[in-house]
């Protein structure tokens, strides 16, 4: 299974304070372990939300919102995609992660990605919709 491991933002990460040499070294070593174990598929750190934008959908209208965003603890500061055997394995790896935000309270959130099998049996309506989409895509390819 694949999981996304989300590093939650903190006051410091949102203030754009860069991680220390020591943390970078520890994180580099941890990443190396993940790669050597064949677990890491991808991962990156995100810049502070001040540099981000949002597209908001409400009542059929779209609007653009500039960062920074409130609710710091709900924001994302970084992520990994891991290939693991189970949620327990993901937890064990996460436990081995160096404290990503030393001196502050922070969290790693582990969320399984949907696999094809998770969608189970499609309802006839959804199936028909997918078929139509496929037909349209096909005709676009030909056109």
């Amino acid at each position, binding site marked *: 299974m694949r999981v996304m491991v989300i590093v939650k933002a903190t006051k410091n990460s949102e203030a754009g304070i860069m991680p220390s040499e020591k943390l970078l070294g520890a994180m580099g070593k941890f990443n190396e372990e993940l790669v050597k174990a064949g677990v890491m*598929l*991808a991962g990156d750190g995100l810049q502070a939300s001040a540099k981000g934008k949002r597209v908001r959908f409400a009542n059929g209208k779209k609007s653009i919102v500039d960062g920074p965003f409130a609710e710091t603890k709900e924001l994302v500061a970084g992520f990994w995609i891991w*290939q693991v055997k*189970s949620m327990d*394995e993901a937890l*064990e790896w996460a436990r081995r992660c160096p404290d990503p935000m030393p001196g502050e309270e922070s969290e790693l959130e582990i969320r399984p990605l949907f*696999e094809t099998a998770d969608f189970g049996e499609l309802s006839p309506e959804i199936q028909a919709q997918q078929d139509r989409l496929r037909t349209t895509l096909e005709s676009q390819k030909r056109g």
Partner: protein
Amino acid sequence: MQASATHQAIEAVWRIESARLLGGLVRMVRDVSLAEDLAQEALVLALAHWPGTGIPDNPGAWLMAAAKNRAIDELRRRRRVEQKHETLGEEASAAPPAHAMDIERALDEDVGDDLLRLLLVACHPVLSTDARAALTLRLLGGLTTDEIARAFLLPEPTIAQRIVRAKRTLAEAKVPFEVPRGDDLAARLPSVLEVVYLIFNEGYAATRGDEWIRTDLCDDALRVGRILAELVPQAAEVHGLVALMELQASRTRARRGPDGEPVLLLEQDRSRWDQLLIRRGFAALERAEALARPLGPYTLQAAIAACHARARTADATDWHRIVALYDALAELTGSPVVELNRAVAVAMAHGPAAGLELVDALAEEPALRRYHLLPSVRGDLLARLGRYAEARGELERAASLAENGREQALLLARARECGAKAAGALQN
């Protein structure tokens, strides 16, 4: 509840640590069976202690220390037996003497070497490929015998037997435990790559049973492949194999239709291809190409897979490049299966008649006599040439040779289609 949660957590630790633990133990005791026993004893100790104390901060070191203590006990016991035998004037047992000092020193050696040694032993050429696959999944993948049996759709005792026999063969052949270097290492890698790809393919194109793809096996093979790529980063073909597996796995979602039936490459919905795996495949291919001249067979196959991955639509496929890559691959391997694939590529680049000519030249090939894809390809080319009645016969023959239920059904459906077209042509 609490206890079972800890149990699962210990299993997760085991999954992460068991290969390194076994690798270290095999180096110390130079005996795969004994190493496995010692590792198991360490696990039993962990299962007894950790629910009370919690999982230690460095569980790998804990397990290694526990296993090491048992190893020292065991080796002392063996020495006592040996000495007793010597005083009795009998010949000492063949087990090499090992001292606590050797073990201390051994612990400081490189973990990467331990894993590589374990993989080389598991994939040793004295073993059959089936035995190598089972042992690799067991020692490197951390799978239980039961899990391996389920993956290969075989009864558990069959796999257990296979592993026991493999370990005995290794012991009897007195397989050396030194990690070879340079050219010697390069000479050993093909047997490892073969096994990893065999495991991958058993998952990707399941030959047995009704399931067309068994993703778990693909994931296990990819994981071993990715580990190997870090162990021997200088070996081009290792990256070539990883690239090939990443690129093939990127199509998994699109290869299965809504009812689980196979969808052929050119008919797949490319928007469902996994872009993350494609990018990883490209990166691994780049590493392989930078290291190798000329390109090896896995790298060439990965380069072919990359041509498909690069094409936004099936029509945009660079068939001329694919033909050139197959030319190189055919020259390198001399494999009739490669020749058959090359014929398909030629048909795409230069038309079905050109492809059919090449396929017909393979008709007498003994290696392809029972290979369902030969009549399957021939049937497709005949159909594209409008020779539907002949096409139908070939596709029916292909179906009778196919072992996978899903594939058989697909071939029969195509045969019926051709039959209907042939009948239509007669009426007109």
